[in-house]
């Protein structure tokens, strides 16, 4: 069962990115559970794999429009596919860094990987339910998905 503190660490890692990098905080929507299959993903997804005391995945998935505005807010003017991938990877990297700080050696956390494009399959963890936390920023909405067992 996912613990509140674990969830808080992942959520804070995500919202902190918006607050610091874009100087504009994100808000957290009402979380919900997906019990069958994996939640749908947006165009770009940054994924970290977790093993050790818990096993599963945590990913941040965002639409291109949100990432474009986020890049603009960061004074970046290169909106290429590579930079979009880079950006979700950096968000995942921040989530990973927070998790390492809070959970220490109990969790073994992978270097982030990135999924992009129409054919990308959402990460699935057999036997784990996916906890979905909507991350709202300006007029856009992304998802933080935590699937741990």
């Amino acid at each position, binding site marked *: 069962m996912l613990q509140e503190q674990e969830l808080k660490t992942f959520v804070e890692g995500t919202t*902190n*990115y918006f607050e*610091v*990098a874009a*100087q504009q905080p994100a808000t957290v929507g009402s979380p919900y559970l997906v019990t069958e299959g994996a939640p749908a993903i947006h165009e770009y997804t940054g994924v970290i794999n977790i093993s050790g005391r818990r096993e599963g995945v945590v990913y941040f998935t965002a639409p291109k429009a949100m990432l474009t505005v986020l*890049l603009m807010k*960061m*004074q*970046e003017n*290169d909106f290429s596919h*590579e*930079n979009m991938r*880079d*950006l979700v*990877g*950096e968000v995942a*990297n*921040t989530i*990973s*860094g*927070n998790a*390492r*700080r809070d959970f*220490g050696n109990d969790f073994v956390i992978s*270097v982030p990987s990135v999924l992009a494009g129409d054919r990308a399959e959402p990460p699935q963890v057999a036997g784990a339910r996916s906890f979905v936390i909507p991350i709202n920023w300006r007029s856009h909405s992304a998802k933080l998905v935590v699937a741990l067992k």
Partner: protein
Amino acid sequence: MSASVSAVPRRAWRLLIVDDSNIIRRRIERSQQFSELEVVGAAANGVEALEMFRKTDPDLVTMDLTMPQMDGIQCIEKLVQWKPTVRILVVSALADKATAVDAMEKGANGFLNKPFTDRQLNEALAALITGR
């Protein structure tokens, strides 16, 4: 006749940026506000960084830790062996104390957590330049 003050040309601080994120490399270059600081190169991993370091002989390095091919900690060890006076600012999302201590023990001079604001970056660079 008044004494003239000869203008002593001050050598610019030469900065090498090492990060696997293109966004971060560009951000550091764009946001740093020091007129005496010259960005002499940008590398996407430790191996590239070593090559660029030999070519450009920087005084300062910003160093990511989690990178492909050669990570930041290994790279710091090499750079400090080659040039003990080099000043290295680690710029990383790894926020745990053990990582920071490890980097400092290997020869880093400062640590800046990602994500960062322009102000935090410039304060960290100022501390690196002045040796504070």
